[in-house]
């Protein structure tokens, strides 16, 4: 087992995802399949191959330095777990 059911539950909780037990079981199986497959990839000898940063041969596009309107604050705060109308409120971090 690459990843346990407990780890899947924990990651789901951190990501604020609600999984019912069947879904959690299904995902645990699928994630193990994926991670096992990754093991197979690591068997390949890549010592002479330069790292690939990107699969695309393109280089980055850029935009001009122009400010445009931001979101209305209430919209920006709309998904916050807690807010005072101006700030995001989080459990104290210091």
């Amino acid at each position, binding site marked *: 087992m690459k990843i346990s059911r407990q780890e899947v539950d924990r990651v789901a909780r951190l990501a604020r995802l609600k999984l019912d037990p069947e879904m959690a079981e299904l995902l645990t199986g699928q994630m193990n399949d994926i991670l096992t497959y990754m093991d197979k990839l690591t068997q390949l000898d890549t010592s002479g191959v330069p790292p690939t940063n*990107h699969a695309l041969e393109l280089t*980055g596009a850029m*935009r001009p330095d122009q*400010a445009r309107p*931001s*979101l209305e604050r209430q919209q*920006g705060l709309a998904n916050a777990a807690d807010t005072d109308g101006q*700030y995001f409120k*989080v459990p*104290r971090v210091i």
Partner: protein
Amino acid sequence: MQYEAVIGLEVHAQLLTESKIFCGCSTAFGQPPNSNTCPVCLGMPGVLPVLNRQVVEFAIAAALATNCTIAERSVWARKNYFYPDLPKGYQISQFEAPIAEHGWLDITVDGDQRRIGITRIHMEEDAGKLVHDDRDPVSYVDLNRTGTPLIEIVSEPDIRTPAEAATYLKTLRDILVYLEVCDGNMEEGSFRCDANVSIRPVGQQELGIRTELKNMNSFRNVAAALDYEIRRQRVVLEGGDAVVQETRLWDADAGKTHAMRGKEEAHDYRYFPDPDLLPLVIEPQWIQRVRDSLPELPAAKRSRFEDSYGLSAYDAEVLTASRAVADFFEATVQAGAEPKKAANWIMGELMGALKAESRQIGDSRVGPAELAGLIGLISDGTISGKMAKEVFGLMMSSGRPAAEIIKEKGLEQVSDAGELEAILRGIIEAHPKEAEAYRAGKKKLMGFFVGQVMKATKGQANPKLVNQLAAKLLGEG
């Protein structure tokens, strides 16, 4: 045992762009909390960053001005950490392939020049701001600053003393301000510095164990924090203990550094190339164009001011401290003022008056042409230097030219030899005893006669001329 310190500095400079590095939100400082945010800088799912071209332009300018080699191809990386000031859970930065490397800056400390290597410059986004509540167990998050463009400039561990560190920082700050890529404000945090410091016995090659210092918001604090930390490490080593590699915070009020809790610095950033951003390729033509448009940098300007205007090193330093002051000085000379006199007026009266009014030199009521005009009126004898200071005060408060004020107030210097001679003769006649004493050898009395003329003319007599006339007339009799 004799120890020496080994210091390397990491500087974060906020770039003066209109918009953020990966989205179009404004970078304006001091806005209501969370009013400059959008799905990109809030880290909403599914959004894509698009690089602000001006950020690259500014980074190229900073790299060229610090003698760095610019990478033709650089790569964006994700620096992962979990903290509420960073909504995405990672900071977009550059890691293995930064935009520039291998630069240097020359600094002068106590007359000695030293070259400090620059390891690298890379671009990244700034994080948000946290406000902690003293009473409630909550922190407030303002994401306006999230995504503000930064360059990080990392020095080689070439610095040996706190004074060198402060000078390096100031030199670097002046360059960035001259380039107009950063406003260099340490108090507001647009120019920030972390320091790595270790000590080793003099002569030893191997480096000691270092600590990282944070939270120093002025040049003076950087020097003070390093000074304290060097002494602290020496006490640790001399006590037979080992320095612990850790991050320490400078407490300016206590004048001490103290260790951050271990948890806060247990970092494993898991850097990897950001799949949302393609590699950045910079064409040589772009670099050349930026190189061609670089302004004259502070060190070059200083030596030019000394060479072509005959200014002292000190004067040149003061006048080139900002581009605006240097430009004002040159414009004043251009308008006909003698350089040394222009320098004295700008560094003395003008800067004093501006400081008293909390004005920038760009908003001065007396412009370069007006100042040159005033200096010209002293040179040609229209007013005395003493009068000129009064006139200057009136120019500053009214914004009117010198000639107009002088005329209106009747402040012209009396340089008419005939008129002054008549006054002087009257005074000599009225004071026969003093005239006698002078002629008998009490030459100090010259000052008395000159003073009397000045009094009679309400200070408007040309002092040089009065001295000449007095010597002549008193010599006659």
